[in-house]
């Protein structure tokens, strides 16, 4: 019996896990290659080529679908996965051949073999969506644990189709990527959830005198000067071999090991997406491939993308405009952010390199102006920061991930795409304010272009205070001050200090959706603390939540969980009268809100919707339902 267990995951669908055999376990992600290479964590072979002395993990091909007679296998053999029979050329054929090919593989499993978990089924790229749904049921019913796809490495429609089909599989299936996979494609395949990756191309490339690098390949041996490489094979310091072809093979294989270990490292730090984006410069095809994936597989990628990572997140190329984290932030601000009713003024500011914006020099100067002129009426202003690629960030949300953590190259020049993204966000944002609210655009350059582009769709009147000089210049700051003081003659602002409450309410809405702010921090709530430190929120003397200025997030108390439970969101149903210990496991979860992402605050309820505890999710809601192992929620507070 072979079992796949996911140990740790979640920087996108990428995960680390173990493939458990009877006695040993293979750590994933793992490279799959010929037995001759030390870099092959799992080795490919044919049954006839095996001898008794071989050790390690093996993947054995069982020949062609068309061969006559039963496939040969040796079930007593340890650490072995059998790849079911192959049929090539399918991506150019109608879908019906694909599905029938997959169905024909299952009977190839020998009749006396009740354990099907060591047989890997091959899924061709020409399967239709409806056929794939049927197939998923078949896989669930037949104990298939391992599934293999074949990539041609050209980043074209068949490769994209493979990823779509992969996204439809149950979460706890081990996925193998076979074929011609260049090193630059490896981070992407890991990112979208492949656990075993074939690096056979290292050897094909060597046979064609190509030296592989992380991003490209170099023809060697044609008289041109070789690029410098410090690996032992290229330096000639390796003792085992002097044959140039063997050394080239080893160099190529080592590149795969290097790229994979980097991908694992970045995934652990929450920066895998950045690494994947950096590899899109391998070729125009690779760049368009990621863009196509982002648009067609958004919901799949997003499901595994945590709402909080806690490390700097670089948004560098245009790929990042549509990364799941960015799209989701824009959507949450558009859908979930609701300004409080007493905001009578909206001031638009440019973003700053330093996060949170409030800590930057420029924003301190803006803040000083607002304080000086507005004093205790300052909270009647809805401060809004225009930025790329997040669109805009309300001041109340400036500390939350990714707003408080992103980093972008700043040149002051905006491209048309990011201008449009921000303009659309601004239109949506301002539509939430009353028509009588006045908008002050204290922006210049590209930020100004954003407002100008949005202008025709904005109902409120807009005053530009920095269109002739930099927003931080004395001229502009004076214009801002004069404008507001003029406005004070026309509109009445109520003196009220509500920064803390506004922050809690906006954060609650952002994290838990509409209405959460009302549940956790109604207008009579008592809030104490500092935005940059922490804020404690109490309702009728019972604490509902704690806001942390470090990460801009709320943590719930049991009371908060009970109040929030009525919204019917972010719940995890646990089949027990009470929670024992400090975590609950996926196996005990009977159902869960599919909106839950790894790292979210969640409410654990029993079968009668009684709140048992609150905590932090370790996996997505769907995974909690699908998995039979692993920690689902780390409990923060529970009913005793």
């Amino acid at each position, binding site marked *: 019996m072979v079992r796949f267990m996911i140990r740790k995951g979640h920087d996108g669908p990428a995960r680390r896990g173990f493939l458990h055999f009877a006695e040993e376990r293979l750590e994933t992600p793992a490279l799959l290659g*010929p037995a001759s290479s030390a870099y092959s964590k799992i080795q*490919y072979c*044919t049954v006839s080529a095996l001898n008794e002395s071989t050790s390690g993990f093996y*993947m054995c*091909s069982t*020949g*062609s*679908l*068309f*061969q*006559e007679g039963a496939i040969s296998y040796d079930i007593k053999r340890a650490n072995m996965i059998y*790849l079911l029979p*192959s*049929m*090539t*050329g*399918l*991506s*150019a*054929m*109608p879908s*019906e*051949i694909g599905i*029938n*090919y997959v*169905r*024909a593989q*299952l*009977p*190839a499993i020998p009749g006396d073999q009740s354990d099907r978990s060591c047989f890997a089924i*091959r899924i*061709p790229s020409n399967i239709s969506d409806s056929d794939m749904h049927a197939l998923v049921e078949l896989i669930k019913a037949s104990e298939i644990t391992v599934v*293999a796809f*074949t*990539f*041609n490495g*050209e980043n074209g429609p068949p490769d994209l189709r493979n990823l779509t089909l992969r996204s439809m599989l149950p979460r706890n299936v081990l996925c193998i990527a*076979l*074929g*011609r996979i260049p090193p630059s494609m490896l981070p992407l395949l890991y990112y979208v959830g492949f656990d075993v990756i*074939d690096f*056979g191309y290292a*050897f*094909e490339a*060597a*046979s*064609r*005198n*190509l030296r592989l690098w992380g991003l490209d*390949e*170099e*023809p060697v041996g*044609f008289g*041109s000067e070789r690029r410098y490489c410090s690996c032992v094979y290229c330096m000639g310091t390796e003792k085992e071999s002097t044959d140039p*072809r063997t050394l080239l093979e080893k160099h190529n294989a080592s590149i795969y090991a290097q790229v994979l270990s980097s991908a694992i490292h970045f995934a652990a730090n929450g920066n895998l997406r950045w690494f994947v984006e950096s590899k899109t410069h391998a070729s125009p095809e690779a760049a368009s491939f990621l863009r196509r994936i982002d648009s067609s597989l958004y919901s799949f990628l997003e499901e595994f993308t945590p709402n909080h990572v806690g490390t700097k997140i670089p948004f560098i190329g245009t790929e990042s405009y549509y990364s799941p984290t960015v799209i989701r932030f824009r959507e949450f601000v558009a859908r979930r952010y609701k300004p409080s009713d007493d905001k009578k003024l909206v001031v638009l500011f440019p973003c700053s390199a330093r996060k949170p914006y409030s800590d930057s020099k420029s924003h301190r100067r803006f803040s000083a102006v607002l304080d000086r002129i507005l004093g205790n009426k300052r909270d009647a202003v809805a401060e809004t920061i225009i930025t790329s690629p997040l669109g805009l960030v309300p001041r109340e949300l400036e500390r939350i991930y990714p707003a408080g953590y992103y980093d972008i190259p700043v040149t002051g020049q905006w491209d048309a795409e990011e201008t449009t993204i921000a303009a659309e966000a601004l239109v949506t944002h301002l539509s939430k304010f009353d028509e009588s609210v006045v908008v002050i655009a204290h922006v210049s350059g590209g930020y100004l272009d954003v407002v100008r582009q949005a202008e025709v769709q904005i109902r409120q009147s807009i005053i530009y205070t920095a269109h002739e000089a930099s927003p931080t210049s004395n001229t502009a700051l004076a214009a801002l001050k004069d404008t507001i003081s003029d406005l004070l003659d026309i509109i009445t602002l109520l003196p009220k200090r509500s920064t803390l409450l506004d922050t809690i309410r906006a954060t609650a809405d952002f994290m838990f959706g509409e209405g959460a702010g009302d549940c956790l921090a109604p207008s009579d709530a008592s809030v104490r603390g500092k935005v940059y430190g922490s804020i404690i929120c109490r309702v009728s003397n019972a604490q509902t939540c704690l806001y942390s200025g470090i990460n801009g997030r709320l943590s719930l108390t049991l009371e908060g969980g009970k109040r929030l439970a009525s919204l019917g969101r972010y719940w995890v149903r646990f089949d027990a009268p009470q929670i024992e210990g400090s975590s609950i496991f996926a196996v005990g979860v009977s159902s869960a809100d599919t909106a839950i992402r790894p790292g979210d605050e969640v409410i654990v309820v029993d079968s009668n919707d009684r709140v048992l505890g609150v905590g932090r999710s370790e996996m997505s809601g769907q995974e909690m339902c699908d998995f039979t192992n692993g920690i689902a929620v780390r409990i923060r507070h529970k009913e005793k």
Partner: protein
Amino acid sequence: MCPDHIVSIQEAIARASMDARQDSIKRRKSKDLSQPAAAWLSTTRIGGTDGTALSIVLATIGCSHARGISGGCTMCSYLLDGSETPPSGEQIIKQFQNAMSKLEKKQAPLSVKLYTSGSFLDPDEVPIPVREEILLLLAKDERVTEVVIESRPDYVTSKSMEALRRALGTRRVEIGIGLESSNDNIRRLCINKGFSKQDFMDATRVARENDIGVRAYVLLKPPFLSEKTALDDALQTVLDCERMGVTTVSVNPVNIQKHTLVERLWHRGEFRPPWLWSLVELLKRARKEIDSNINIICDPVAVGKSRGVHNCGKCDNIIADSIKSFSLSQSVAVLDDLSCDCLLQWEHVIQHEEFSSLVHTDRHKDRLKSLIAKA
């Protein structure tokens, strides 16, 4: 294998094969129906001595299997050599006579190979009285000591074999049948051949009872198979040919013909014609393993071209020449010392293609060329 799924795959492949053919059959150009589609002379071994062979491809209405609703074979569009309007009996005889005129000044022994891009014995292609007339003309020519015809096994009956033997007297007669593969699955699904191994064996038995030899055509690398599986299957087929009483084995590596399913796959990067290394390996191993009285011949089409059996481009000509000389001499030695840098690429394909299920096309060769051009 579960028959239901296999039947579905077979039907879908047959439809796709039909689809690839489109209306190419109807758009066949009208030609001079008194001329054969092709006729050429070559040197050949005839009963132990070198002689001259005349190959004639008669233009007929074309192969019944390719014409019909079955979709035809996945790699073959030879019927496009034929004519949309069927030639009259007189015209077919005229075609034959025109071709035979090439032999006017040739000395015995002569071999005449009568092809039709279909079945010479199919009465829809060559009406029986016309067939009899042609055989009569051949029988009159004393120089002709060997006659080879081609037919699907459907038309190889006691009646047709007895007639053939009667007409040609004591001449050596061989009938070419496209067995392609001795694996029923491969022949049925990958090739859509439309007859079984049993059909072939029955035809062989009937032919041999009439002292007519059987030349089995063995296909190297039908679609949907990896290079390794294709090589193994072709070798197994040759071995089975010996057991089934075949007298000559003709090895045919797949080439990309117009308006075929194979061409479609090839265009989409899902098929590569076999490597010459596979062919060399096959010929060497086959020659070593089967009875030396059975000739193994091979005259590949489009060798060295992207549509034919090919290697890297550097070694193709030398290897093609060696294969030609092997066909004449039957000596494995001429194939022994071949070598080229691309041998390693082929070895990788043999090892990796079956496993990964990925068709290892030459697309990377083009990329390499552009890389080198830049450097």
